[in-house]
């Protein structure tokens, strides 16, 4: 599509962001209300909070929590999903529990874990992991079930060792599932991390938003939101998408 119009994909992306900012600015000026500040006011707030160091500090703390929760839930969830996809007995034993956990409201998990294990960093991250783990497991289980038996048999007949088989035969088949799980994982995790921070932490973006909510400071709430979204989108552009392109190079 983009090629036919003769636009580079990045140009279309930038244009849509600029158009949105202009629209927002216009709406803000027309509304003239502190409940809908124009884009420029939010950008000024971001610049101010960056200069004071408060925003980068809280953003970094939240990102660290997101990173730890993401890595742990992807590792555990992938291992669980792979095991469930390969061993039918385990799948039958755990299937209903995964579904229960999948449907458990995030808020309930967070509150119960804070009550039972105390309001500390490990509990906060653990609650996020427990919320994300089942969906990763379910996605990877589908990948494991779809593994090509013919290729595994080929690897066996050529006596490929275990690690090369995993690296060259199994993992490439799981990449699409891993990318799907990562992408939805990041989206879910950062939302839940904010809730965890709002309920039981004294720093991080979630905590700041709680603070500004009490003061009805929409400008600051939007400033933190926009800063966070920019970071997440940046991750998508510089890390996830190039990685995915590289992994699917062989597809025609």
């Amino acid at each position, binding site marked *: 599509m983009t090629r036919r119009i003769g636009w580079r994909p990045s140009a279309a992306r930038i244009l849509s962001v600029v158009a949105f900012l202009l629209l927002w600015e216009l709406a803000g000026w027309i509304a003239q209300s502190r409940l809908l500040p124009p884009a420029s006011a939010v950008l000024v707030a971001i610049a101010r909070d960056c200069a004071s160091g408060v925003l980068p500090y809280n953003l970094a703390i939240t990102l660290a929590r997101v990173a730890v929760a993401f890595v742990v839930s992807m590792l555990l969830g992938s291992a669980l999903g792979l095991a469930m996809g390969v061993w039918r007995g385990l799948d039958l034993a755990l299937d209903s529990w995964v579904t229960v956990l999948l449907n458990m409201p995030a808020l309930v998990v967070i509150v119960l874990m804070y009550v039972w294990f105390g309001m500390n960093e490990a509990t906060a991250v653990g609650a996020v992991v427990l919320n994300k783990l089942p969906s990763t497991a379910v996605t990877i289980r589908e990948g494991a079930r779809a593994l090509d038996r013919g290729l595994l*048999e080929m690897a066996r007949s050529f006596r490929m060792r275990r690690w090369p088989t995993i690296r060259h035969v199994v993992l490439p088949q799981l990449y699409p599932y891993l990318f799907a799980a990562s992408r939805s994982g990041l989206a879910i995790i950062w939302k839940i991390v904010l809730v965890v921070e709002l309920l039981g932490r004294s720093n991080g973006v979630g905590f700041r938003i709680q603070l500004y909510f009490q003061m009805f400071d929409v400008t600051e709430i939007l400033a933190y939101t926009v800063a966070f979204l920019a970071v997440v989108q940046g991750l998508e552009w510089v890390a996830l998408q190039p990685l995915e392109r590289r992994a699917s190079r062989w597809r025609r």
Partner: protein
Amino acid sequence: MAEVMLRALVRRKLYRHPAGARVVLEGIDLVLGPKEIVALVGPSGCGKTTLLRIIAGLDRDFEGELAWRGGAPPRIGVVFQEPRLLPWRTVRRNLTLVLPTDEAGEADRLLHALGLWHVREMFPTELSLGMARRVAIARAFSIAPALLLLDEPFVSLDAASAETSRALLLTAWRQRPTAAILVTHDLTEAAMLADRILVLSTGPARIGREINVPKEIRRAGAARAEAFAANLRGGELLLPSRSSI
């Protein structure tokens, strides 16, 4: 035959499915010499592939035994009916990945020998079926096998590319002769490539007839093999009269 590299004895092989079990192979006694090419010929679905999988060690659920010279199974290069290449690795990488050691020289030699050098950096998804099959053959040769198992490596190719692939297979084999079992349902192809043809009868498969291919026919080109096969078909043999030429 003086030396024996394999005696495959399959007294009985059952195919189990939810509704019960069916005997697919019975009373098979296959003896193979170290540099001998044996063709297994029979109609589709008669159990040829099953026998090949048993010999490859991929199916251990059978009554009988595999007696290898020297006790342990040797290195076996398998060419499956589908090429079974890793689509996310280049042609050359598909070969080097299965090499037991890190010597890519043998892979490069085979890529040249099988006319694949110009596609070595391509992905298997970019190749025609004939080319992909040839890569699978090169891969099987690349591990310097003592035994090659070929499961209908030229089926559903057009006549010309099947002919090319057969010639290239023979070239590679002549450079490094090994024992080989070739599964095919094409008698002409069997006569062209094999020293000995075992004709399997159906339901359950047994070795119905054993034909020694005379020296002057063996690997002497399509025309003579065709005549030989036609002669066999004219006899009591009832095989699909499909010819690849």
